[in-house]
């Protein structure tokens, strides 16, 4: 087996990272030969809907695949039916109202347990049925990848409790960590609930047909309802938003999600909560400075932003999974 692996490392391997947005599909290609990168390219293709890649994208991916014998395709899972719980005990899922038979779980280093519903995994499989798919990576894994990189920096102090945020074009992933221990984690999709800021969240979410289609019988399973309720009750926020900073709807959403997450973290007894004063944003979109300033002033968080590339992280993760090497 090890002989086979070392042989595989010597061959040319193509890695594709795919992130599916609503109207666009981001594909990044990385060619590895002999454990060295020989080519890297990024493509953005238009798609009609997030639920169907369309012939153009399928052909494009298959064309790329046909160029090399070994192609690994990694998908960034950005659907709502997923989450994270601290610790690695599968039975703990019950405490968070999650049906453990309905989800697939992955334990990361004994620090946290990522889960995704079988429905979401099936959805991803179906989406790539004509091209094939090798890896489905949780956004938590990607965020953890960036956190791990951060930890290697000399300036890193693991004593400090930090809220980490991975900002993607259509999703937000949050994790609170201290002393190499994950205390909290949640995932938001920026699209599924467009009117989150301006409507009654509870009604909106329960009635959303899209969610019904996903067969998320009980939104409580994801621990979302309480969070969103908490957010909606925060009347102060809306007034604050209108103050000094001109924020786009997108930015407002981010702030809203951070706020509701923190509220959830503080209020839910299941979490080992204490005050969080530091926010580290891994940004894949390009956050405006105003947002950072707003967070620092209004949410009273010490905020730093690192520009990152999720595609690169996906590629690194899939290379690590497939060949067990760091390129």
């Amino acid at each position, binding site marked *: 087996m090890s002989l086979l692996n070392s042989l*595989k490392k010597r061959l040319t391997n193509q890695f594709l990272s795919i992130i599916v947005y609503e109207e666009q599909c981001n594909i990044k290609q990385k060619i590895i030969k002999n454990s060295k990168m020989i080519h890297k390219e990024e493509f953005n293709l238009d798609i009609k809907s997030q639920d169907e890649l369309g012939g153009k994208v399928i052909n494009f991916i298959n064309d790329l695949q046909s160029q090399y014998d*070994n192609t*690994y395709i990694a998908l960034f899972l950005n659907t709502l039916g997923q989450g994270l719980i601290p610790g690695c005990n599968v039975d703990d899922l019950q405490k968070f109202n999650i049906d453990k038979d309905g989800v697939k779980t*992955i334990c*990361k280093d004994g620090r946290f347990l990522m889960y*995704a519903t079988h429905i979401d995994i099936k959805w991803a499989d179906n989406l790539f049925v004509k091209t094939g798919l090798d*890896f489905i990576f949780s956004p938590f894994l990607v965020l953890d990848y960036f956190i791990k990189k951060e930890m290697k920096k000399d300036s890193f102090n693991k004593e400090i409790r930090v809220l980490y945020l991975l900002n993607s074009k259509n999703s937000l992933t949050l994790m609170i960590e201290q002393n190499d221990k994950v205390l909290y984690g949640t995932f938001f999709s920026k699209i599924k609930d467009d009117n989150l800021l301006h409507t009654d969240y509870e009604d909106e979410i329960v009635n959303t047909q899209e969610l019904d289609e996903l067969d998320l019988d009980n939104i409580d399973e994801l621990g979302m309802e309480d969070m969103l309720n908490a957010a909606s009750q925060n009347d102060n926020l809306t007034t604050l938003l209108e103050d000094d900073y001109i924020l786009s709807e997108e930015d407002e959403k981010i702030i809203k999600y951070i706020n509701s997450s923190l509220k959830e973290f503080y209020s839910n007894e299941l979490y080992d909560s204490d005050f969080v004063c530091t926010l580290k944003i891994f940004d894949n979109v390009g956050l405006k400075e105003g947002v950072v300033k707003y967070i620092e002033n209004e949410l009273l968080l010490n905020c730093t932003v690192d520009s990152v590339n999720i595609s690169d992280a996906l590629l690194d*993760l899939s290379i690590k*999974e*497939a060949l067990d090497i760091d390129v």
Partner: protein
Amino acid sequence: MYSYKQPREKPIFDTFTKMWLIFVSIALIGVLGYGFYLYNRSSNFSSKIELKNRELNKLQKSILSLKKSIKSIQKRRYISDKIDHSNLLLKNSMKNLFSLVPDQIVLSKLDMDENRLKIEGFTLTKNAYKLLLEPPLKSIFTQSKVIFKYDPYKGKYKFVSINHYKEDK
């Protein structure tokens, strides 16, 4: 493994190479099999050849013995033919001889071998012998001698005729 999905099988050999390998291995197996078959057959042949050689030797030996027996049989046949012939000759000559003997002559003893005829008998007169028996004897044999002796008791001549026959070579 931190992915929600297992990666697809990544065979080291692609389908074309696999097909090619399968084809080559089938061809190789075929060639080897045929070679083995041929080797078996040839070793079979050599053992058969050995067997046939032994048979040949046996047959050659039997041919030799047969030839020998043929020769002996031929000899015997020749001898028997000769005997037969001589018997026939004898019979004929006896017949002839007896037909030659006239009434005046009585034969008392006849001694005959291949080339010689000895006749003893009685004749009333020497002339009877000389006229009636001698000429045919002389015509048959190359040499014919006769001795007469008168037997007063019988009033006849006892004669002994010795005739030789010499074959012309």
